[in-house]
């Protein structure tokens, strides 16, 4: 494994550890409902600060259940991940293709160069080619 890959893996591992540690250490245990969304907690805080506040507009479309909502969230993440993977895949493929084309070009050129360096017969011609 190259050094680059190792560093990338360490970065991923650190992110995973940051996500898992709060769960493993039970940091949500002091709450009635552990690990709810901060957005929902803010809504609760609003109703505490202003008990008579009524939201004056409701969403045009609301996912009918938690399952549908999580499906749509996964769809969002999948779309993003798909585009990112496409980008990096395309780049990698292009780089490999370019490298291969260069190699082929090199092979094609190599015999010519050998012929050019031969002194007999073709005096002056290599110089003209070089220009």
């Amino acid at each position: 494994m190259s050094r680059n890959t190792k560093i990338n893996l360490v970065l991923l591992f650190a992110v995973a550890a940051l996500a898992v540690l709060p769960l493993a250490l039970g940091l949500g245990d002091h709450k009635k409902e552990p690990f709810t969304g901060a957005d929902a907690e803010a809504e609760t805080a609003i109703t505490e600060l202003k008990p008579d506040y009524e939201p004056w507009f409701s969403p045009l479309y609301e996912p009918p259940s938690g399952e549908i909502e999580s499906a749509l969230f996964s769809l969002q993440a999948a779309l993003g991940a798909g585009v990112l993977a496409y980008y990096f895949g395309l780049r990698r493929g292009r780089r490999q293709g370019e490298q291969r084309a260069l190699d082929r070009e090199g092979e094609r050129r190599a015999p010519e160069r050998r012929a050019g360096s031969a002194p007999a017969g073709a005096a002056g011609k290599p110089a003209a080619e070089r220009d």
Partner: protein
Amino acid sequence: MHIAEGFLPPAHAVAWGVASAPFVVHGVRSLTREVREHPESTLLLGASGAFTFVLSALKLPSVTGSCSHPTGTGLGAILFRPPIMAVLGTITLLFQALLLAHGGLTTLGANVFSMAIVGPWAGYAVYALLRRSNAPLMVAVFSGAFVADLSTYCVTSVQLALAFPDPGSGFLGALAKFGSIFAVTQIPLAVSEGLLTVLVMRLLVQSSKGELTRLGVLLTRKQSRTETEAVAR
């Protein structure tokens, strides 16, 4: 950081919408110019938007015992400058408001202001400052992404505290309350976002050197000096 639909009083909702609109309009112009002048950057633009899509869908547990999500706006702000990120962030927020009932149309202005405007600008400012003082690229990228993420949630706290001041302790009391919900929860997530942004930037350095050089992320020392001089002039 998504203020839920209808959860900002109408006057606040309108004010944040008015504040955000010029940034988004300006961003749309920068985006069309970028695509027209450099059609080859469309792909990387898509990838930056996609990064925001993934990260803002990832709800992660945090030390406060609640969950929140990163924003993913630092990467695009560093690559393409904050105005373009205003557009990409708005698209993400619109998707979530319309399909997920997450955030909302009436609170779109406020959410755009925190996630697509202040976050990218604050993150970019930190990144640019560190780069100018010759900090290593990845240190600047991490700090930029960290600040973009955290500042977004600080702005949300301010927005809510302005709309719902505490009856006893006023704006500051409410700010402390919302800050403890959003900002504290966000600190480890901002670290995660910084690490993920560094990861993507490392992959970009490996795969897209030419593009990064054109965008001014990778600079030779000489170039960076002339650029600083050009800005100073």
